[in-house]
């Protein structure tokens, strides 16, 4: 499926003379629209017409032709760019339309440990022990920015939206979240609690 980038017929046409280029752009536009019409039709409330993002995607693709290395088909590469733009726009619009109050978040990750009047079962004791340790690990091993990133995700916001609301970027928020998960997991492992033990009480 891979090809040498410079020999790809799409590249030749898109970099050819005006009639050739116009015909290729029109064909590419139709392909992208067909692909996005499928992939955007049932995500994030589908509050956006694929027609609205095709132009932006085309411009991005045409401005990035020098980055196409031929490691996939040209159309797969182009659809990858168009999909990211389309889904990002869908997410942005979806969360813009949701009331800010209902999904506002702060950096606290406080866990209220349930107090039962009855004697707790073994399973409840395990959950209590693990959630207590989770709270300790959160307080001792996470930074405020990591707590903020986790809180946003737990409120149902995608990484991209947490980034937008905190003035950061997607890569940075993902890294905060990833490192926090690894730190918390390592904290559990230090006291002999593995993923299976955690999963056993998280269901």
């Amino acid at each position, binding site marked *: *499926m*891979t090809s040498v980038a410079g020999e790809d017929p799409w590249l030749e046409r898109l970099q050819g003379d005006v009639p050739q280029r116009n015909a290729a752009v029109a064909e590419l536009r139709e*392909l992208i629209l*067909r*692909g*996005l*019409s*499928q*992939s*955007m039709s049932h*995500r994030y409330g589908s509050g956006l017409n694929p027609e609205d993002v095709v132009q932006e995607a085309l411009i991005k693709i045409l401005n990035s032709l020098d980055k196409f290395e031929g*490691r*996939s*088909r040209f*159309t*797969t*590469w182009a*659809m*990858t760019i*168009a*999909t*990211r733009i*389309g*889904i990002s726009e869908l997410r942005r619009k979806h969360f813009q339309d949701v009331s800010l109050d209902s999904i506002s978040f*702060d950096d*606290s*990750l*406080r*866990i*209220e440990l*349930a107090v039962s009047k009855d004697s707790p079962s073994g399973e409840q004791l395990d959950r209590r022990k*693990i*959630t207590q340790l*989770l709270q300790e690990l959160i307080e001792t091993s996470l930074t405020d920015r990591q707590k903020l990133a*986790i809180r946003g*995700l*737990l409120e149902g916001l*995608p*990484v*991209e939206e947490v980034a937008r609301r905190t003035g950061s970027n*997607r*890569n940075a928020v*993902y*890294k905060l979240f*990833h490192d926090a*998960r*690894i730190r*918390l*997991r390592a904290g*559990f492992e230090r006291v002999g609690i593995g*993923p*299976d033990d*955690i*999963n056993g*009480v*998280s*269901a």
Partner: protein
Amino acid sequence: MPLTNEQVSNLLGMVASGEPDRLDCNGCFEQLAEFAEVHLTSREIPAALRAVETHLRQCACCNDEFNALLEGLRALQEG
């Protein structure tokens, strides 16, 4: 506001499934087209693309975009 029970469970699930990921979202994106073609043809994932697979397990945003890409590519294949 304290976390709800459901949020605590979700967080514990995220911690349990956390694994080292050497890619960020942009690094994943750069290899996603190639990875999608391997996936669509059911070929074995080459070692060079294993990091993409790991990132997609860890990042819900990228995984959602990957699934959307597969749907779009299948629509193109169906003509």
